């Protein structure tokens, strides 16, 4: 299913990069992942391809750069339409985009607030985080996936962020499984998908990474 050369400027622990890779895997698109050294020094290619934000992920399709993970996933869905990530009807698509935007605005920041803080601040950050998950449970309803019967756009946008949950569970002293069982069930279902299992890193390794970040930022 080749439609040209596909390169992903990547960082192994970035959930935003994971979104792009999962989308490509779902579509059966061959791509080259190039790991960036975000601490040692960003590559020339990254700085040239994403001059505004200088961030990963960047998708290079036949040399043309695309930035911002949600925009990239939409692009992938449009260039390689099968299997579709977005539903066919305009209203379903609007709902998917709405929840993708909600997840973008809320989840990673909420995760960050937990591991970046201690004591009372971390406690209230945890409450905020669980509140967000409960809202997402509401959106999930009785469906298997956010996309309905099949793994779709919102699932792709959301699942990579869950790779950071183990780390914040450890810092926050809670378990998503106990607090939001529906969400947890959805996570497990997604992890059974080949594309997801291949891309999501070991949560223990993510936890070690977060420990390192905390040390670097002087939080202990």
């Amino acid at each position, binding site marked *: 299913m080749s439609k040209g050369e596909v390169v992903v400027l990547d960082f192994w622990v970035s959930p935003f990069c994971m979104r792009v890779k999962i989308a490509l895997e779902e579509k059966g698109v061959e791509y080259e992942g190039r790991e960036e050294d975000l601490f040692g020094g960003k590559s020339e290619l990254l700085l040239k391809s994403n001059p*505004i934000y200088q961030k990963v992920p960047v998708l290079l*399709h036949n040399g*043309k750069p*695309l*930035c*911002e993970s949600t*925009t*990239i996933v*939409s*692009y992938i869905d*449009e*260039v390689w339409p099968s299997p579709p990530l977005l539903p066919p009807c*305009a*209203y379903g*698509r*609007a*709902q998917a*985009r*709405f929840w993708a*935007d*909600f997840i973008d605005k809320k989840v990673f920041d909420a995760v960050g607030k937990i591991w970046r803080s201690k004591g009372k601040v971390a406690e209230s950050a945890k409450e905020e985080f669980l509140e967000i998950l409960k*809202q997402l449970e509401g959106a999930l309803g009785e469906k298997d996936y956010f996309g309905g019967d099949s793994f779709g756009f919102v699932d792709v946008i959301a699942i990579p962020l869950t790779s950071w949950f183990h780390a914040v569970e450890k810092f926050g002293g809670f378990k998503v499984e106990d607090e939001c069982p529906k969400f947890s069930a959805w996570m497990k279902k997604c992890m059974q998908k080949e594309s997801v299992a291949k891309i999501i890193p070991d949560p223990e390794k993510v936890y070690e990474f977060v420990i390192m970040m905390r040390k670097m930022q002087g939080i202990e």
Partner: protein
Amino acid sequence: MAEEVKLLKTWSSLFGLRIVWALKLKGIQFDSIDEDLTNKSPLLLQYNPVYKKVPVLVHNGKSISESLVIIEYIDETWKQNPLLSQDPYEKAMARFWAKFGDDKVLSSIWSVFINQGKEQEEALQVAMENLKLLEENLKGKKFFGGEKIGFLDLALGWLANLICVLEELSDIKIIDKERFPLLLGWMQEFSQAPLINESWPPREKLLTKFQIMRENQSL
């Protein structure tokens, strides 16, 4: 089937204005409901339970929130006068720049408006860098959408009107002719386009509203 299209907004909402323009450009009849955000209607709370914000589009009883999501919905539902390109790369670019406008341009200009002295100077530098990127985007084009008004023009349209209001109130020039000739040209073309022009909120009311917001910020 008779279409029922309702738009919940406020008289001054910049994001609501995007939807007014989108609907008008497509020639869609709609009912406008101006909300009082200090006293939100049960309708708003029902149709946007997540954020309780405007704008909300209600189409045959189904609600859609978040202005850029709404514009895409409108574009996909009513195919006449398309706002987004069919080409996936062009579409991605339009979406990227619209997000840049909301995430960076809007906040940097707001920073210029509410700050004073050294902070204002610094905020102005950031705003100008952001605007330079938009200026480059306009090279060789009449509108961000090309020959016709498109998705990105609607997303950035607030610039065409609000800048003058904010510049007047803060007594500082943000978009000047030397640095931003293309942007100024676009602002004029866009503002004066039919359907766009007739929808601007009353200028005097905007001046009053933003003056009060500015004063509240410095309290």
